[in-house]
Each structure stands twice: as C-alpha cells, then as structure tokens.
C-alpha cells in the first residue's frame, strides 16, 4: 500500500483546524502547484484558474475538519476540491447549468467512505497512471471530458458528435476496465 499522508501534513491540517492562518500558508506552499495545475487544466484561463486556486484553499480552510487522515490521502482530498471548484467556475462562466449531478459533499464523502479493500482508500497515483495508459484512447477521452470539463453524457455526445449510447458505454466500460486492471495489479 502506498504511504498515507505524511505526518507533517497531518500536523498542518490540525493547525488549520485550530484556525492557524500560517498553516494554510504552509499548505498553500505545499500544494499550490498541483492545485493551480488542475484549475488551469479545467479552466484554461490564467485569471479564472488563479481565482479558482484561491477558492480551493478557502474551501480547504472552511472544511478542514471534514478530512480524515485514516480514510484518505490529503492530496486526493485537495485535488478533488480543486477540480470540483474549477468545474463549478467553468460552468458558471459558460452559463451552463450547475454541475449538480454529484455535489462536492457527495464526492468528498465517497472518497472517505469505506472501500471493499482497505488499500483502495489509498490508491497509488503512479500505478493508476500506468493503468490508465492501458485503456483505449476513446475511453480515456470521454472520461477526461467528464472529469476535467464537467460534461454530462449528452454534452460529451454532442461535443464528440457520437451517439449517446456509445458515450455512456465508453465511460462505463472504461472505469470497469480500470477497476479490473487495478485489482489485477494488487494480486
């Protein structure tokens, strides 16, 4: 199992829970690069990505007590908030309907709920990257459009000019396959 969150980051989160503003500055120094990387990937606009980066850390400040070190890695929690925040901003900028299919609370709860295998709460990002590369390109593409652009099935179908059923099938089968590959890698 990959290492869980380092003790010094757990200590930082405790300080944030105690409303120590210097701790949020320290967490920013640690995570600003990947948070901004995610928000830029989603928004593809410097100004919007900068604002989404600040919004992400303000959410972290306000929700720090929700994170449980024993139920998930801090980096996953932070990146989930960053991606959700950026997609929410993107849809507002595009005057699209809010990204209501799954709320941030649901998403964070999902990440921290018990998986069937203990190690699944601590997926190794490098292993996952390697496994994702084994998926067919058309499945990766539809998943990424949902994951990074907040597109629904039908929006992806329209964007790619593909039948809706095909898009649904690729998303479903892509994640089924990723799960199967992951389980194989753990044997």
């Amino acid at each position: 199992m990959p290492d869980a969150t380092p003790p010094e980051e757990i200590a930082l989160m405790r300080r944030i829970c105690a409303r120590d503003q210097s701790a949020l500055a320290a967490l920013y120094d640690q995570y600003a690069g990947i948070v901004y990387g995610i928000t830029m990937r989603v928004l593809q606009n410097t100004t919007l990505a900068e604002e989404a980066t600040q919004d992400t850390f303000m959410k972290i400040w306000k929700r720090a007590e929700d994170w449980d070190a024993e139920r998930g890695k801090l980096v996953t929690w932070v990146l989930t908030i960053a991606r959700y925040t950026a997609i929410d901003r993107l849809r507002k900028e595009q005057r699209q309907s809010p990204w209501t299919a799954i709320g941030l609370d649901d998403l964070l709860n999902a990440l921290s709920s018990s998986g069937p295998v203990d190690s699944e709460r601590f997926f190794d990002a490098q292993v996952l990257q390697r496994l994702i590369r084994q998926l067919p390109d058309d499945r990766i593409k539809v998943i990424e459009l949902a994951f990074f652009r907040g597109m629904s099935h039908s929006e992806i179908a329209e964007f790619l000019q593909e039948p809706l059923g095909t898009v649904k099938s690729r998303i479903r089968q892509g994640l089924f396959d990723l799960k199967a590959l992951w389980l194989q890698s753990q044997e």
Partner: protein
Amino acid sequence: MMNDDQSRQPTTPHNAACDELRDLLPAYVIGATTAEEAARVHELLAICPELESDIATYAGLSEGFAADVQAIQPAAHVRGGLLARLAEEEAAAYPAQPQAPAAPTLVTKAIKPKRGRRSSSWWWIAAAAAVVLLLATNALWLARVGDVQSQLTTLQQEQQELLTVLADPDVARIALHSTADQTTPLATVLWNPHNNEAILYTDALPALDSDHAYQLWVIGAQGPVSAGIFHTSASGTSFHAFAPREDMDAYQAVGISVEPASGSDQPTTNPLALGELPTTT
C-alpha cells in the same frame, strides 16, 4: 478484459436494480450523469446499499486521471491575495469586541480563574501577576525589539504582506521571557491596535517532537484564550500570525506553553514564556 458483468446475479427485482446501479455508478462518480440519473442512483443505493463501497472505489480510481496533471506554480500575487482574503474573512467572522474601559495598571486588573480549570489556571493567574516583574528586565530586550521587524523581513520573505499590515508606528512590541529565569528572551509579539492583527516571532524555542506543539495564549480577565498553535524550525525560529478576538486592552499578558500537537482548549502545562501587554492609560 474482465468487467462487472461477471458479478451479475440471476434476475430478480433486487438484482435488476443493483445491475442498473452498477451501470450508472462509474458515470455518476465522475459527474457525467444528468440530475435525473443522479437521483436514480440515490434511489437505487437505498435498494442496494452493498454497492456504496463501489462509489469509493470509482472515486479513488478516477482520481488517477488527475495524477498526470502538470504542477504549475501560480504567480506570487495569488498567494498574497489568498492570505489577504483569509485575514479579511476571519476578521469579519471574529470581529473585535467594543473596547472595554481600560484599568489604570496591570496590577489593578483582576484575573479570574476559569471555572473548572483550577488545576492549571492557578499557575496562569500567578504568571499574569509575575509579568510585572519582567518590566525590570525589559530594557535590554526593548533595545533589541526595534530590530525585530527587519529581522522578520529577512527571515520570512513570504510574510511580507502581513508585515506591511503591521508596519504601523503604534504597533506594540511585547517581549516574552522565559519563566525559568525571567530574563531570557524567547519570543516577541507585534500587535497592531488599529486592526487588531498580531504576529509572534520566535528565535530561541527548540523544535518539538511531532506529538507536541507550542500554543500561544492571550491572558485576560477570563483566563487564557488560545491564539493558535505553532511549530519552530530546527534553528528555533517561527512566525505565527494571529487575530485576537478582542482588543489589546482586554488582555494583560501573552504566554506560550507546550501542548499536544492538536492544541488544547486551556493550557495543560505551565507557561514557558510570558510577556506583559502595555497599558494604554
């Protein structure tokens, strides 16, 4: 390749619902379902609660797509803007209380022990009175604290914006001395009475193990109130910004104690450093 079809059971209403849920969950987790489909997921989860764990699995797996995102350092103003926004929101959430009438001197201010905290609060009451004695030894330290701001600027470049806020001629400089000998300077607090923002700077506190943290307290008539926990570097330095909830006149002293890493509601150990706040009369 294997897929979840292998886990499908003979058709019953329950199994059919679970199969439908298995089909929807991957898209649900990455946000590709419509609001109607998401509502259906919630309905089906009530029928097939055993599949709730699949949500965590797919959520964790899908985060792998974020793993190859290139880290990009944002411009410096993003950090400054964040910290300014944080300070502003915190100040709005915890506004300073109306200024209480100031007592003429520290020694005339009664410090009441907090109910139910007798075991450790007696020390803090005595300590608040003892800080008067520190006045006699402050001359040397007062000569040094004039340089504190420039030292901070050098050592803590990232705190430039906060220092700018505190660079006010009326900023109070409070020296915290060791309670062991009442002479060794251990820390300095710079407190701006106009915006009620303050910073603590230390250069002589040893780093603690991961199970413990230093905790700063502001001590007023109601006893010590936490002003946050902080850690020091290997060289003993630390920079801790805090925003006291009440004006400076509401307090008589500041102190530092060693507490569990997550901090304490009230001090659980004797203070290792104390400093008296100046009176405004």
